[in-house]
């Protein structure tokens, strides 16, 4: 017996370079479930991929529609970009009563969406991260910064949240300028940012996109002292691409509460031959795991039942479940116990069904991300 679960991510389009790893992560969770054979008396999960294209709401809706009505999925991991997530939620998931667990939509707008409780996300809202970044920057004694953000709801939302907190703290934002992803050249942006007179640059962008382009260009002409990064910039490819020049010059935040979970996940990813440090892979794994666990807790693959079980498996009380321990979780649930899924990113769903937003503060040094603290 098997049940379909949709994976709706932007396999083509602007974020196509990070999606394969995200999908692989979600599927890793499913294969753990399937190998254990413990889900609902040996039921297996069949992943069905759909292409959200990230950009095109109409195409995303069509793909979701197919997943829901034709492939009859019990729940969906996705979508990724906030625009696509909202379109899919409003036009397909909510009307049809299908649970969506987005690993990467961080727009604050999703907090207030009228979702009949069907929309969840393992990524926290940007509003919180902006505050955290502002705090750590201020604490390090930096009072003037330049900001560059990727020109979409993620970047813009983060920069607004950051600016508000940072100015309340007494800091100055010398320049706050957007950059477009996927452009050929970022010298103009770096020129303007550098001229503003700040020594430190905050980059609210994507690691495989304009964000990296900007850091690269800044380093090439030695425009800034330090770089402050957010979750979108967290990823090994940053270090691989830029090399030792960033050592000791960059710090930032990424969602996560527990070093242990993240490390285990990295190992699992390595075994499964994908890059576990790439953006939103942990969140994707967690999204997949949550869906499976919720099914088990609900005792059925009924869509609404999955929704109702979601919060209880994600949060305390109960036994903490780390990556690789899904089988254990399934077993506990089957025996009528309770679990608190922690996973790769320290999942803790709050209010409207989104990650609470614990952040790991990291620094780049010795060619790697070094964890400093959590908050």
């Amino acid at each position, binding site marked *: 017996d098997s049940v379909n679960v949709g994976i709706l991510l932007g396999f083509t*389009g*602007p974020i*196509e*370079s*990070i*999606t*394969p790893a995200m999908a692989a992560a979600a599927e890793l969770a499913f294969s753990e479930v399937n190998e254990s054979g413990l889900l609902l008396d040996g039921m297996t999960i069949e992943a069905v991929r759909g292409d959200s294209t990230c950009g095109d709401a109409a195409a995303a809706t069509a793909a979701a529609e197919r997943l829901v009505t034709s492939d009859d999925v019990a729940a969906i991991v996705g979508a990724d970009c906030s625009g696509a997530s909202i379109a899919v939620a409003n036009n397909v998931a909510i009307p049809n009563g299908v649970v969506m667990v987005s690993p990467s939509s961080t727009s604050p707008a999703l907090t207030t969406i009228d979702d009949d409780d069907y929309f969840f996300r393992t990524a926290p809202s940007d509003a919180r991260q902006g505050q955290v970044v502002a705090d750590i920057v201020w604490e390090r004694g930096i009072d003037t910064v330049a900001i560059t953000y990727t*020109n979409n709801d993620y970047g813009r939302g983060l920069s607004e949240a950051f600016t508000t907190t940072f100015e309340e703290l007494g800091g100055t934002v010398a*320049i706050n*300028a*957007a*950059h*477009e992803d*996927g*452009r*050929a*050249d970022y*010298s*103009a*942006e*770096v*020129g*303007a940012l*550098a*001229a*503003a*007179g700040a020594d430190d640059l905050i980059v609210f962008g994507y690691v*495989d996109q304009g964000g*990296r*382009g900007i850091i*690269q*260009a800044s380093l*090439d*002409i*030695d*425009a800034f002292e330090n770089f402050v990064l957010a979750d979108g910039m967290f990823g090994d*490819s940053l270090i*691989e*691409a830029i090399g030792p020049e960033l050592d000791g010059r960059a710090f930032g935040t990424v969602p996560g509460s527990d070093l242990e979970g993240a490390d285990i996940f990295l190992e699992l990813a390595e075994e499964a031959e994908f890059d576990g440090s790439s953006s939103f892979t942990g969140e994707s794994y967690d999204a997949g795991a949550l869906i499976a666990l919720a099914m088990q807790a609900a005792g059925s693959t009924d869509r609404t039942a999955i929704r109702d079980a979601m919060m209880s498996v994600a949060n305390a009380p109960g036994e903490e479940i780390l990556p690789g321990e899904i089988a254990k979780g399934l077993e506990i649930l089957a025996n009528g116990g309770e679990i608190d899924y922690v996973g790769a990113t320290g999942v803790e769903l709050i209010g409207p069904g989104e990650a609470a937003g614990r952040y790991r503060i990291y620094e780049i040094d010795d060619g790697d991300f070094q964890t400093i603290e959590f908050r």
Partner: protein
Amino acid sequence: MEDILNASLVLANFVIIPSLAYGAQLALGALGVTLIYAVLRFANFAHGDLMAFGTMAVILVTWFFQAQGIGLGPLPTALLALPFGIIAAVLLAMGTDRFVYRFYRKKRAAPVTFVIASVGVMFVYNALTRIFIGTSDIRFEDGERFLIRARESREWMGLAEGLALRSSQALTLVVAIIVVVALFWSLQKTRTGKAMRAYSDNEDLALLSGINPGRVVLITWVIAATLATIAGTLYGLDKSFRPFNYFMLLLPIFAAAVVGGIGQPFGAIAGGFVVAFSEVSITYAYRRVLSHILPEEWMPDGLAQLLSTDYKFAVSFIILVLVLLVRPNGIFKGRVI
């Protein structure tokens, strides 16, 4: 004196060198577009993805060489792999022409039919590249990254500002100049070049002059694919390889080709630099430059920026539209169809 030196160093670092390198990258791409346009009379939307394909082949061969420990010392290994990439791209382009464009040429289809066919070809290339090498971001540069480093040069010159010059930037510029001169010379002076121009002007009459159209088309694709691979590889060396970026590069490349006067090799070069310089110089904040040359009390409060970088892309296009309004056929008076 030192102030002026500092100011010009800032200007060089942030405006001139980046614009030159970026302009040269655009120009190389635009040359290929312009050539196809000149001879085959259509705007080839697949050019960006042809660049990506050629570069992909270069990367695969580069990896092989790197694994074998073959290298060029301070120069990137990719240069050694370049010929292989060119061959791959040429084969692909020739195959495409054989199976797609030749049919429409025989039918004497309208140029727009070719354009749309090239959109179809773009989809196919797009998929091929991604299926072969995936979608992720790839750095394949090795060798010496910098000719001059900002920090070192600052210490060495003892000035407040330094100068940075990457090897890939210099390489791009040199190659661009060589390629355009060679191309221009061969179009104007060689027999084949003249045959190409004649063919582009009037196909029927070219037949009557004994020109073999098949050969002309073939040579055109060979040159275009070569240019595409060179442009793509240089761009990839300078930035990084990501298939999606090559598609996005198409817009500024087209802009460059058209503004320069479509069908004109020198126009492509001029267009590339116009686009690059307008993007960078109009949105640059001149505060830092001014801070070196203006006395304290004259310093403006703001950033001395003409327009925010939010509008960078828009600005370069406004410039384009303005250029076209003054010179409706582009800077070098390209052909109109």
